[in-house]
């Protein structure tokens, strides 16, 4: 071993910490892409995302509020392909294709708002409970238990019903219901990781508690939370659509659940299209995120990292 230079004449080679991060990310991506079902999920999600992003170019936006379904009373109950309506129209003359395209935006909003806020809140509360323990943990977890004791859908339904029918209220209702899952997962993770010798090792080095949390506990705890969040991106839309279906959303909004609800009256009379296409979209959305979530769980497992 040659002696390294003693002082000041230090040359900067490269930001190695940064390149390590990049390499890790690339390795994760490679593991993700080596799983065919994950790739399918990613492709579906990619298509949905581009549909949401390019919505104004795919269809002409409804003025003034593009999230409101355009009504063409001259073209009610048209089957797919007729009069230029690619996927047909609803009983009220709404363009199903328009609803699907702009509905992808509403679904994306719903999942991002709900999952984003609940993940942050749940992670913070779960971490606090796990780190502090004692009566703080006891109080927080009993609150969580209360929330968990009522089935997700029923609870969300009750909250949304109390708040009144609107899309924003669905977001609020779902957030109030779902955060407890993250709090529980995070608490369990923190409790388990706290036991590890490397946390003690970091304490021995003289690290502050905050540093230990950020560097040692959080990075090791986020994997299950990330996977859960990905799965929830799909599930949230599913529950959201259910709530919209039973009329807890504004009527006439471009939302898949609302569309299914509008079309369901016609199914018996053979007008299958108005419910089927948006239903298919809900199904694909939930499926895609479930596939990605499963793939992520495998790819993020540190024990499989060398494969």
């Amino acid at each position: 071993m040659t002696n390294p230079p003693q002082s000041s004449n230090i040359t900067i080679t490269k930001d190695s910490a940064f390149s390590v991060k990049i390499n890790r990310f690339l390795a994760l991506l490679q593991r993700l892409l080596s799983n065919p079902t994950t790739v399918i999920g990613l492709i579906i999600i990619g298509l949905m995302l581009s549909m949401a992003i390019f919505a104004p170019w795919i269809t002409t936006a409804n003025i003034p509020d593009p999230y409101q379904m355009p009504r063409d009373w001259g073209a009610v109950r048209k089957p797919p392909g007729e009069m230029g309506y690619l996927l047909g129209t609803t009983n009220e003359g709404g363009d199903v294709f328009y609803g699907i395209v702009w509905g992808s935006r509403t679904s994306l909003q719903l999942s991002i708002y709900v999952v984003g806020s609940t993940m942050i809140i749940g992670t913070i509360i779960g971490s606090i409970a796990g780190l502090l323990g004692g009566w703080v943990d006891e109080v927080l977890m009993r609150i969580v238990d209360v929330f968990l004791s009522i089935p997700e859908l029923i609870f969300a339904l009750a909250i949304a019903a109390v708040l009144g029918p609107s899309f924003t209220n669905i977001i609020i209702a779902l957030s109030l219901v779902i955060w407890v899952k993250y709090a529980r997962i995070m608490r369990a993770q923190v409790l388990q990781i706290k036991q590890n010798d490397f946390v003690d090792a970091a304490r021995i080095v003289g690290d502050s508690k905050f540093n230990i949390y950020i560097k040692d506990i959080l990075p090791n705890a986020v994997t299950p939370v990330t996977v859960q969040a990905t799965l929830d991106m799909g599930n949230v839309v599913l529950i959201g659509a259910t709530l919209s279906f039973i009329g807890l959303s504004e009527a006439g909004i471009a939302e898949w659940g609302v569309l299914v609800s509008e079309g369901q009256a016609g199914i018996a009379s053979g007008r299958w299209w108005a419910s089927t296409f948006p239903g298919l979209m809900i199904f694909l959305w939930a499926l895609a995120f479930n596939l990605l979530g499963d793939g992520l769980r495998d790819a993020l497992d540190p024990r499989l990292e060398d494969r």
Partner: protein
Amino acid sequence: MPNNQFENNVLAKVKDLKVHFNSKRGVVHAVDGVDFEILNGETLGLVGETGCGKSVTGRSFLRLLPIPPGIIKDGAVNFKANLVCTRCSGKGCSECGKSGHKTEKGEQVDLLKISDTRMREIRGDRIAMIFQDPGKALNPTLTVGAQMAEVFLQHRSLEILDMAGLGQIKNKAILRFANQDVKVFDKILLLLPKARKQKLKVQEAVKIMVSKALSETQVPNPLKLLDRFPHELSGGMRQRVMIAQALACNPDLLIADEPTTALDVTVEARILELIRELQLKRRTSVLYISHDLSLVRRICDRVAVMYAGRIVEIGKAEEIFANPSHPYTRGLMAAVPSNGIPRGSLSAIKGTVPELIDPPDSCRFSGRCPYEVNGCRVNDPKLRKITESHSVACFINDASLSWCAPSFEGERV
């Protein structure tokens, strides 16, 4: 107060340490009145079966006990650090002249009572620890380099800045970065081109220090090791990283909690050699916690035998191994397999370590002791000196007792 003063060669003094754990069935007296000293530069072996309170004793030096349910009931761990220049860790620099070496004594502190901030200054800097299982003691999400960097950033930021040629720097963000105290907006400040360059310089300096520390543990190609993750290394390699990290700041006391239990025998020998070598070079004291008597005999200057939360025998290694005076020590020694013993005749101590919930007022070893007499079940033996440097907590061969003391006559061992 001459009583409270340390003799010059004493580094740490554990006084009547009592650590209890609350459990559902009662209070567990895990450590129940332990007294011993660690001298400068010596290796003290702490031996005993599982559940004797060895690790708890070792961990109390660093206040690493889980509290609650643990309680430090009583006692003190007095520690007198050697003063070392924070700029050069004792190698001699412009600030401390050439006298940065460990000559002056710092003030004496009670490790159990000082503030958390003070404790953090001592942890990793003056007292370090090596764990049993190196596989669990390294964070799987950080590279070896990043993990080792922490100890330097925590305790040697001045030296790092000097090394990076930024000794006089005023930039608060860089100073905080070198102190591992990065605030939220510091991340943004550090993205500015000038600060970024300085930050990279600091990182490079840390890298050099880390690879230097690693090379001392005879790791092949330390620079390459920096960007590897712990799971990519072998057990021996991980333990070397742990040792490098523990000895990085030239500590006064190294607590080694069965550091070779998880390693195979050939690696074990090399790791032990390494610890010994680095210890002699740096005049570090080592508290070596182990259940392996043959190993302790090889490397320790003094030995303390623990049983059921107490020290039952303590003395120089030669004395203890030549003249084991506690029946428990004898039992442990008889249980070590060696060349002279014929096949099939390995002996074990009868029974197991008693539960330490509300222990009775008798000798803790009574019930398992082959030399037990009636008096042992009602009296609790205290440590008494049998030679100047050898003490034992047993009534055996104690001529001052009015009742009939047990004796080793009719030897079994």
